């Protein structure tokens, strides 16, 4: 099954071209031009990964990352940014970002990161399911 990606960036031109190129590589892409819109979309739809600009109007990148991770802990977030300081990168990774790529990014590297992110998400979901089953068995199996 193909990877389902949510692309978040405030540059409309970037969203259009990037989604076209990622889709041409067999992935399903949806777009949002702000972190707030991305969060609203996550309430009704499931994605394998989010590719998100770090600096956008409205919600700050770190705050957006925290909110998404609270809402969907297993969701993988790849940050794409014009420039990030070492401090911001470390902070983002500590909160749970999967990776941070610098713009202009190499598309093959980005799609490889998305594929890796999907595999990582599936592992997390699997682990969560196993834990749930274990819990049920413990409660009902004695």
């Amino acid at each position, binding site marked *: 099954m193909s990877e389902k990606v949510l692309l978040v960036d405030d540059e409309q031109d970037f969203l259009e071209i990037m989604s076209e190129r990622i889709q*041409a590589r067999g992935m399903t892409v949806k777009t949002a031009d702000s972190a707030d819109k991305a969060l609203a979309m996550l309430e009704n739809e499931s994605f394998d990964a989010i590719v998100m600009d770090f*600096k956008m109007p409205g919600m700050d990148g770190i705050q957006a990352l925290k909110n998404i991770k609270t809402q969907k802990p297993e969701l993988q977030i790849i940050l794409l940014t014009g420039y990030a300081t070492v401090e911001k990168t470390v902070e983002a990774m500590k909160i749970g970002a999967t990776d941070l790529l610098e713009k202009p990014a190499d598309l093959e590297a980005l799609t490889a990161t998305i594929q890796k992110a999907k595999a990582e998400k599936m592992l997390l979901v699997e682990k969560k399911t196993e834990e749930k089953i274990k819990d049920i068995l413990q409660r009902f199996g004695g």
Partner: protein
Amino acid sequence: MPNHNLSHDREGIRFFGTLSAAVTHDMKNFLAIINENAGLLGDLAARARNGPVPVDPQKACLISEKISKQVERADAMIKQFNRFSHSMDHAQESVDMEEMVYLVAGLTERIIRHHDVTLTVMPGPVPCRIQAHRFDLLHLIFRAVEMTCEMLDNAPEDTQKQVTVNFGSNPLVSEICFLVDTEAASGWDTLFDDPKDRSMLELVNMHVKKTVTGRGFCLCSGRKTQ
């Protein structure tokens, strides 16, 4: 005499750094879009090479237009940044304030957008000039824009955050006014209270006057009369 000390120099460097960071971030975005368009052309060429689908000339034209648009945006940004960088070269001189406001507005577009604010500059009714160092004046205008945006930060989410900059009509007094469209802005009472901000006003021999509507302030030439 203005208090031109180390702290002021540091503020000037901070201002330079803030604008440089915003501009280079924009440049990275332009490059990213150019990069993806070039990549898309490569994808189309590869598809045409490997299969029966030729490159669609209309699509190629559209991509070329998109690349040109980003080059134009980047060129305009670099020109403005270059003018800003050379503002340090000038001694004190008669400076066109309107021109300086447009320059700050162009360079801070990204910063203003991050506050969810829309900034509109209205052309002045009379020439608005002041005797000052360009860099100091740009710094003061930037600080005024920054303060206005910060005052709107706590406004309710559905507030229309519109800032209008206009110029006074008295040819004897140079005046730049920063006006907001809402009552939700806060912090009017502490405007330019910080010693660093006051020193910035002194450097260009200007003072702050609150507007009668209570929804803005003006930077006026000359010292405040008590």
